[in-house]
């Protein structure tokens, strides 16, 4: 065996059970030094669980982990890190109030013989790690002030600082722009060059094929097989993932537009967005494209009454209206499926049933007393329609997979039959099968005559589902595209042109 084929980490026959489910069933795979190994599968397939076992967050019931030729027992994330196994979470796990250096050495701070922090050493070592990655921020920067992409670099700098030999990326590009993504890929390739074994978990197939050397597919906690990336293709991998061929990936609703449902004009809020105007008609899917931080979420949150604007006007069904409160917005017939499931979307300790009816409690109660039967009927209807997997109406949604959680957020905002629905990043972090189902759903809603706004940072998604796209950058509308003008090129040009023009305008 040459150096290139040495397994730096071997997982042998790992089984992990949770109450009611076998999350991992006799899973074996290996990570070689100097390779990027993709781990793919639908939500709930067991990818994250497997990585948590490796990183010491979960303990497997059966099986063993062989690290550099010897069997190891990883007892905690810190233990894993000291062994050189580093997990970079989907949702970053940094302390915003601490500095970059303190975060990198979190829990393993270098101290002298008296237990006093060696600040100089901490600073210098962090600087070395940051420089190696080409980061443009200082070791004593407070992490909370950094962008998501930079925070991710801090986590990667941890790998440098601890000389990690196994680095696991769990959905690293979920919140990154294209430029930031390229930079991340360059970093990952450098880590590979340096001989680290890298596990790359993602739902984005184009990234997997661009970046990885081998692909292992998980389905329902069972390994379906491992392929060399160059020897396989997308259709084979998706077939392994979902056990069938995927239908056409995107579904655009038939164009059959009715009257104007919503018009906003000159919407401004200092520091967030400026002079934003657009309309959306019944039966139309309007895409809002832009990079993270372009102000898209803030604009739709204003329409829905979660935020207040400084100025601007709103027309609802042709009538000039005051900006509503969320309650009034719901009563008008608006729904907002928010960007973050956990923070805005769901009440995690509640069951699917209670979450579904939460915005519409008055429709499911008489004189304040809940009508449980009616509520259960609605829950069942949407559970079936959206194919949500639960053990019962009161299973806490915190115990569901990301895709199933997202479907409950949709159920919650669909069950009152709205006239207008805003979907903010509706497919973020969910698997291909569910994604496709959600795209079909969006098309179906528009065909039923709803006005739909879809916010997405994924270009193919925006192009695939929208009739018309409004591009935003730096809080302003920078273009509107429809028909033949609606191309990837035009959108990118609009968004980046604006960026390039900005410094000049500022001077």
């Amino acid at each position, binding site marked *: 065996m040459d150096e290139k084929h040495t397994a730096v980490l071997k997982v042998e026959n790992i089984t992990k*059970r*949770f*109450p*009611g489910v076998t999350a991992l069933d006799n899973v074996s795979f290996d990570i070689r030094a100097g390779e990027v190994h993709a781990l793919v599968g639908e939500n709930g397939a067991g990818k994250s669980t497997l990585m948590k076992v490796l990183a010491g*967050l*979960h*303990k497997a*019931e059966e099986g063993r982990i062989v690290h550099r030729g010897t069997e190891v027992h990883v007892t905690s994330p810190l233990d894993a890190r000291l062994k050189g196994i580093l997990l970079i979470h989907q949702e970053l796990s940094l302390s915003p109030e601490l500095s970059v250096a303190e975060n990198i050495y979190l829990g393993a701070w270098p101290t002298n013989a008296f237990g006093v922090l060696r600040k100089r050493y901490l600073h210098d070592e962090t600087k070395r790690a940051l420089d190696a990655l080409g980061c443009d921020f200082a070791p004593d920067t407070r992490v909370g002030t950094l962008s998501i992409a930079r925070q991710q670099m801090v986590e990667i700098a941890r790998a440098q600082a601890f000389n990690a030999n196994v680095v696991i990326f769990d959905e690293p590009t979920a919140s990154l722009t294209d430029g930031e993504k390229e930079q991340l890929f360059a970093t990952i390739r450098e880590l590979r060059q340096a001989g680290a074994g890298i596990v790359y978990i993602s739902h984005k197939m184009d990234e997997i094929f661009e970046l990885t050397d081998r692909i292992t597919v998980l389905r329902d906690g069972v390994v379906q097989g491992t392929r060399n990336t160059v020897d396989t293709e997308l259709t084979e991998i998706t077939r392994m993932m979902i056990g069938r061929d995927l239908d056409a990936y995107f579904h655009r609703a038939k164009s059959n537009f009715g009257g104007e449902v919503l018009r906003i004009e000159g919407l401004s809020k200092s520091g967030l967005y400026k002079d934003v105007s657009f309309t959306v008609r019944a039966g139309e899917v309007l895409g809002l494209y832009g990079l993270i931080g372009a102000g898209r979420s803030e604009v739709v949150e204003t329409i*829905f009454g*979660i935020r207040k604007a400084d100025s601007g006007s709103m027309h609802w069904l042709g009538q000039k209206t005051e900006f509503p*409160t*969320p*309650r009034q*917005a*719901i*009563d008008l017939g608006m729904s*907002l499926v*928010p960007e973050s499931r956990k*923070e*805005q*979307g*769901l*009440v*995690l*300790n*509640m069951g699917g049933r*209670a979450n579904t*009816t*939460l*915005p519409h*409690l*008055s429709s499911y*109660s008489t004189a*304040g*007393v*809940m009508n*449980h039967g009616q509520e259960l009927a609605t829950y069942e209807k949407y559970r079936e329609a959206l194919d949500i997997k639960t053990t019962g109406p009161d299973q806490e949604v915190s115990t569901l997979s990301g895709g199933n959680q997202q479907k409950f957020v949709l159920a*919650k905002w669909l069950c009152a039959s709205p006239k207008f629905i805003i979907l903010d990043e509706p497919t973020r972090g969910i698997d291909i099968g569910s994604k496709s189902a959600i795209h079909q759903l969006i098309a179906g809603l528009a065909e039923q005559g709803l006005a739909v706004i879809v916010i997405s940072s994924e270009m193919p998604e925006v192009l695939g589902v929208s009739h018309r796209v409004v591009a935003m950058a730096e809080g302003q509308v920078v273009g509107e595209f429809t028909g033949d003008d609606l191309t990837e090129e035009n959108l990118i040009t609009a968004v980046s042109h604006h960026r390039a023009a900005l410094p000049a305008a500022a001077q």
Partner: protein
Amino acid sequence: MSIQASLTHNPKRGERAIHWLYRNHIWLFLTLSILVFSLASPYFLTVNNLSNVLTQGAFIGILAVGMTMVMIDGEIDLSVGAILALASALAIGLQDSLGVWPAVMCALLSGAVLGFVNGSVVALSGMHSFVVTLGGLIGIRGLVFVYTGENALMVTNFDYTEYAEIYLGPVSLTAMVFLALAAFFQWILSSTRHGRETYAVGDNIQAAHDAGINVKRHKIINFTICGTMAAIAGILLSMRLGTAEPNAGKIWELWTIIAVVLGGTRLTGGFGSMWKTVGGVLTLAILRNGLRLLNTPNYVELIVMGLVLILALLLDQALSPRTGR
């Protein structure tokens, strides 16, 4: 892990049992306490003694009913002991001038108003309820001292104390009121819109707000309920004692919180029930009573109670499937 493994033969049933146990560990604790004290003292397991336990526990219990509503909301109310004292003083002090029932109504109203004020300040200022009601605890207690002139008020018409002697079999009026309120508010929690909103607000206030729930009004309602419960406890106490001490109910807010937490309702909000609280209240009452029957010195009693509280919370942690996440 071993518990789960041993149950694999009958997963459905075993899981359900585990699930139930992890959510209702307090009843296990209660059964255990009853068992231990029954063996340790011949006086414990008598109808007379248990009737007493229930009545003594009911005062903290009524406070705990209101506290549970506030705590599932993710808030806390430290002023309940002081409100209890004020209501008790008003119920007795106003009797001579207003008559018995108007005085009782005034006492009740004082609790509701103070609860409303607590809730309004919390909801509208955005200050933490710990701070707001800590102010209430001190301020309202001061009010009680001003009103009573630092003396215990005595009831003049002793018919008033007769109400406390109403018994249904071994169950006193106070105990009946406690159990009825607990049942009623359990129904509110499980079967009404208000109950649903309570869990939603406590668990994820942002999601609740975005779902169109009027979070501020909602919190004010629960603080008002909590204040009213404290007043009810105060009135029942004045009936039972025939006097109103300015120091009545001191540190009862802490015993109340202990009872609620012991039951399994979480301080962080969004999780809990009235049944848990009833379990917590009864366990606390039985521990106090049992230790006294065994002639345990007062300070040892406190040490034991403290240990039990921590033990119960550890058990809650251990049985929760979420550990390790």
